[in-house]
């Protein structure tokens, strides 16, 4: 009887101990997770604080609607549109190149490639994502730009086209890999339904798989676009640092990220307006990529629901 009781108590002790270990593990894991949340919040707070200093000097309206970006030399002007335009020119250009190639590759991978080809091709494409940005930048300046110049002699040394092309390589893995996932997630039964109706591979790919995977592919493209907008090093190297209110891809252009690097690497005094301006630009950039990510997440979530 008493034996039984001590056994009981020991079991209880053991349980408490297990519960305590469990508790500690859960807490530490939670702290790990919280680190990213806190970091994000801290970034938002710093962006808000520093850019609020900027907006005391420059009105939000003249920042968002101004057509002239001339932050370093008097008379200073902080109209962000040329930077936004540069960013869009380069990243939209990159997507125009990368989306058809990425989608074509994804269709090839998911429908045409043999298991063997797929096994080496997909990791190889994903390897592209691991190449450092600077390497891509120098590749643009030393290879793509000369090539462009030989075709279009009016091409400037630093130009948006070269940046767009190199950026398209950089977002290609994202677009390809996620589109391939979306296509592969289309249930086998739908494919078979198509083939049983005497469809060819091409007809099944274009008529059934592509429509069924639309939201996943859309999400892939948006994520690719969002990466393109946020990309810095390669673009800064290839596109140059001349803000231009122009859509000519052969001219130099400055992107939002490009401006941020230029100022933060220069000797701009802390606390000055031009120093604070990089936070305003960064805040705008953050808003843009953040909303793109939220948008693509919501599409992906809807996609998951539709297959449940």
């Amino acid at each position: 009887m008493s034996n039984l009781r001590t056994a009981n108590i020991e079991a209880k002790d053991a349980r408490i101990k297990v519960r305590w270990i469990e508790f500690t593990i859960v807490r530490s894991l939670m702290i790990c997770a919280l680190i990213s949340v806190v970091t994000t919040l801290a970034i938002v707070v710093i962006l808000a604080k520093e850019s609020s200093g900027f907006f005391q000097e420059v009105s939000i309206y003249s920042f968002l609607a101004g057509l002239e970006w001339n932050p370093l030399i008097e008379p200073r002007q902080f109209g962000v549109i040329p930077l936004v335009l540069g960013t869009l020119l380069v990243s939209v250009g990159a997507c125009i190149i990368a989306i058809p190639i990425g989608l074509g590759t994804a269709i090839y991978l998911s429908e045409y490639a043999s298991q063997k080809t797929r096994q080496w091709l997909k990791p190889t494409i994903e390897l592209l994502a691991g190449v450092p940005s600077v390497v891509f930048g120098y590749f643009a300046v030393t290879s793509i730009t000369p090539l462009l110049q030989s075709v279009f002699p009016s091409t400037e040394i630093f130009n948006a086209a070269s940046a767009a092309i190199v950026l398209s390589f950089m977002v290609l893995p994202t677009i390809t890999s996620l589109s391939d996932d979306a296509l592969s997630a289309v249930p086998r039964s739908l494919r078979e339904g198509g083939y049983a109706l005497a469809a060819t591979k091409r007809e099944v790919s274009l008529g059934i798989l592509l429509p069924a995977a639309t939201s996943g592919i859309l999400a892939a493209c948006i994520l690719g676009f969002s990466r393109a907008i946020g990309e810095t090093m390669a673009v800064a190297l290839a596109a140059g640092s001349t803000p231009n209110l122009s859509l000519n891809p052969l001219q130099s252009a400055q992107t939002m990220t490009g401006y941020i690097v230029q100022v933060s690497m220069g000797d701009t005094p802390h606390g000055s307006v031009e120093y604070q301006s990089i936070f305003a630009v960064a805040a705008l950039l953050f808003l843009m990529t953040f909303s793109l990510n939220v948008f693509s997440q919501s599409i992906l979530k809807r996609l998951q629901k539709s297959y449940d």
Partner: protein
Amino acid sequence: MSDLNQNSNANQSVLSALDVSLAYDQRTIVKNVTLNLDPNSITSLIGPSGCGKSTLLRTFNRMNDFIPAFRKTSGFIKYRNLDIYGDDVDPVFIRRRVGMVFQKPNPFPSSIAKNITWGPSINGFQGDFDELVEISLKRAALWDEVKDKLHSSGLALSGGQQQRLCIARAIAMDPDVILMDEPCSALDPASTAKIEELMSELKERYSILIVTHNMQQAARASDHTALMYHGELVEFGSTRQIFNSPKNKVTEDYIMGRFG
């Protein structure tokens, strides 16, 4: 397309397997099966799970082509004298003549009408699409239930309706043969009864080969029955004969429900 049906000799088999053996990689699944399908008849293929029914069924329209491990190791599959595994035969052509309905209803995530018109449109159908939709849905006994919502999604239908939509989709191709792989296994008894009734109407125009686990269904709905066991065709004959006086002990045991 339908002149192909009329020109051929009515007494001849529509589909036949001659000494067919099938394998996945090195593993033989179907062994030396010979089976002939009469025109305008329903043949049911029964047998325990894993005995190779689906594997055999899917060779009749070359759906196994999509499984890399699959091989045909002996024999011929003929569709009206055409060796469908012949070197110069386009599987797409075979699938125009030999349609298929799957175990799980698999309508495309688009409108009811689009589900029906897609197959014919990619195969060069020239006629009136509205008429095609109406005729196909009527033949699949679905028209009355969906005629007011032809442009709403096929996925919004009930399981039984979806399966009839898939049958309508197969019919719209005006095939010669329809293969069905346990088409009622995901359906309730009422929908199952509807599809069985439908099958007996369909055989006026088409030949049907149906895989089923439901003995009553085979007995009720089919003219001929084939029993497979461990990849071999144990017995093939008229449904009445198979169910009333089976010649083979295995057949008898199986239809008496003595094993799964």
